[in-house]
């Protein structure tokens, strides 16, 4: 299907969702009609406003918009408004064992439209399920659960976006499942995917950057990559470990070996925990990229990054008549080292947010971030961002 009819179909579905006679707005509490959650909290099957439109098709979405005031070394870099994204998602229970999930994302004011998710799940048993389609790659937790209304900051973690390339989705095929025991739940995902492509070197002027090589709709080098995540979740806590490995360059062409095979390898450790009302959310990544010897000193082969969000909700019911309203205070510490072999080419940021939630699904975010980036000479530049954003499911 070409993108244009696909977009039209989505728009029609959205319009239909706004018609009161057909749309049955569904609160988080009444989402019981949806299948039991098999992904991470906030992931593809944990959307509060999934509601039936065309019989078995459930439709929902979210929107994020914000005003941004950003300065770097005392100079205004950005002062304006942006609709970060408008996403619409569906879930279709084709049969008791078969579910189709999809998410379409509009970014940059509609200039960038992409199919972020289009996966078919076939349940053989709870511990063995087959998945195929356009998959969210299980490289860390954030890539699997990143909806704006769920998170406390207007900006996504640099580790996820600028290091790993979130949101990272690619065609793939594999297995997933869950095992429930007395001590908690163990989940796994393991897929073959197209993997990163050589844009991470060829399209990136700033050195090695995985996001520049994330779009690989047809496997450019005919060499699939392997990606997987295992997570253990005792009560109120989840610890995940992800791994990725695959060639990114074209090393075989017309049956001939035209280059050395060069791989990307990634390891990510992620955590989600709730302790005494305080929510911890974070992940740390190590990236290894094999680069040609003639690019040593220009392109990095070793990178790393992490983020840690700490938040606490308080003042519940502070807005009269809105029992679900509350405030959330949050702090994020994050850092990315784009080249671990030199002193510079890195960024560090500390962010704080005070958010007003009118309900679990809608949040007004007031945020401040202070960062320091270093060029490859290790010269530092200070930046600061003040943002006021709104994100809501619909």
């Amino acid at each position, binding site marked *: 299907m070409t993108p244009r009819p696909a977009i039209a179909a989505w728009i029609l579905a959205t319009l239909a969702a706004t018609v009161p006679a057909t749309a049955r707005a569904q609160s988080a509490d009444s989402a019981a009609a949806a299948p039991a959650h098999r992904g991470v909290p906030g992931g593809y099957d944990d959307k509060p406003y999934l509601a039936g439109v065309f019989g078995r098709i459930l439709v929902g979405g979210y929107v994020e918009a914000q005003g941004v005031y950003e300065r770097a*070394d005392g100079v205004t870099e950005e002062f304006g408004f942006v609709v970060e994204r408008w996403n619409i998602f569906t879930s279709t229970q084709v049969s008791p064992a078969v579910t189709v999930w999809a998410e379409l994302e509009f970014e940059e004011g509609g200039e960038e439209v992409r199919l972020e998710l289009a996966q078919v799940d076939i349940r053989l048993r709870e511990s063995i399920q087959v998945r195929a389609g356009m998959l969210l790659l299980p490289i860390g937790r954030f890539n699997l659960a990143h909806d704006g209304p769920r998170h406390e900051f207007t900006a996504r973690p640099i580790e996820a976006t600028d290091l790993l390339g979130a949101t990272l989705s690619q065609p793939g095929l594999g297995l997933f499942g869950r095992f429930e025991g007395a001590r908690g739940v163990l989940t796994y995902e393991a897929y073959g995917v197209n993997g990163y492509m050589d844009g991470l070197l060829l399209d990136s*002027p700033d050195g090695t950057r995985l996001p520049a090589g994330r779009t690989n709709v047809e496997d450019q080098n005919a060499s699939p990559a392997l990606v997987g995540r295992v997570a253990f979740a005792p009560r109120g806590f989840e610890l995940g470990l992800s791994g990725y490995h695959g060639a990114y360059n074209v090393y075989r062409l017309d049956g001939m070996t035209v280059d050395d095979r060069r791989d990307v390898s990634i390891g990510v450790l992620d955590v989600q925990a709730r302790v005494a009302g305080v929510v911890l959310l974070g992940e740390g990544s190590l990236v290894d990229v094999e680069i040609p010897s003639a690019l040593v000193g220009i392109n990095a082969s070793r990178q790393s990054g992490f983020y840690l969000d700490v938040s606490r909700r308080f003042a519940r019911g*502070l*807005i009269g008549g809105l029992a679900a309203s509350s405030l959330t205070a949050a702090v994020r510490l994050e850092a990315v080292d784009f080249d671990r072999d030199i002193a510079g080419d890195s960024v560090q940021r500390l962010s704080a947010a*005070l958010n007003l939630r009118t309900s679990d699904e809608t949040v007004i975010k*007031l945020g401040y971030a202070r960062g320091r980036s270093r060029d490859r000479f290790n010269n530092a530049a200070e930046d600061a961002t*003040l943002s006021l954003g709104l994100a809501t499911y619909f």
Partner: protein
Amino acid sequence: MPRRWTAYAAPILLAFAVGCGSLMTTEPNPDDLLDGPLGGLSPGELAAFAEGDAQFGKPFSVNEGLGPIFNNVSCASCHSGDGRGVPENILVRFSRGGDLIVEEGGPQLQDKAIPGAEPEQLPAATDVSRRLPPPVFGIGLLEAIPDTAILALEDPTDQDGDGISGRAHLVTAADFVPAHEPGGGAGPRLGRFGRKAQVSSVLEQIVTAYHQDMGITSDFLPDENRNPQAGDGTQAADRVGDPEVTASVVRAVVAYVRMLAPPAPGAMTARTARGQELFSQIACASCHVPSLRTGASPVPSIAGREVAAYTDLLLHDMGDELADYRPDRGADGREWRTTPLWGLRVMKDFLNGEAFLLHDARARSVEEAILYHGGEAAASRAAFDALSADDRQALLEFVESR
């Protein structure tokens, strides 16, 4: 009992409003920057400066034309903060006698290559010169110093018997430099840029840097730099049609570099004044001429002003101590252009606290750089060595305050 949400939000907003200036970062002191514009530029000139700044800082990806062979990905990648480079990005220039051996990859070694291409290897039996990327600020001021002012400082046969015999380096501008461009046109032109004053025109310097350092072709040099040591695969690896940047991009960078201000020198103190006195007394100032005056310029901020660059822009024999034994156009292997002594006050701030002085970064302090001087500067070096420790320190503090 729930409180009104304004009770929480109001103090936060107030705190931001009050502390907005420092919370939102502050501008560094423009006197301490290497990439600030000259004072008094018009809005139009500042717009051109901003455009050139963006182009100067723009890194090229492979799919934007980088390579096939190259040294670095942008102008800014070699010049830290628009100042000098670091040993890791030293350029290697090579030739054999006066022969630039273009057929062997001369005169500059491109030791990086895009995927599919082969980088150059240094051929055997060549004369090699390692060159640290120099600062780029103040170039417009040096360009505007009239030839007559520089030629008036020449003393090639040491007529005055002071042991110093600077001479101008007359060169031929590249064919693509039009006659109306400073340093351009047919016939000998006064070289004033490069470690051996081997280039007469800012335009030529920048076009060549795009071509040789980044492998970026332009309207001025539209044919890709070749690696003659490699086969056709290297040429075929470049996947962008030529020219890869337009003349307007190059012109923007030329305008930017012309309008870059040197950082302000430090305030003169009694101690640095003493150092300045010694600097003249031991004849450092005979080559590192404290000030020259610019002539006419289409940029009013450049025209008719004193330039405290501490250079005469002439070639001097620096002896075996600094010789690279590699001729470069009309300069022999012992000759170097007098390096401007400006920006030293803040240079280390852009080099992780290091100095990286002299053409190949061999000196890590001003004192070490002085002690490497030989040839025409041998007497000054000896005089420096004979100063009392306190006087030596005063002289060093003066130089490091420029």
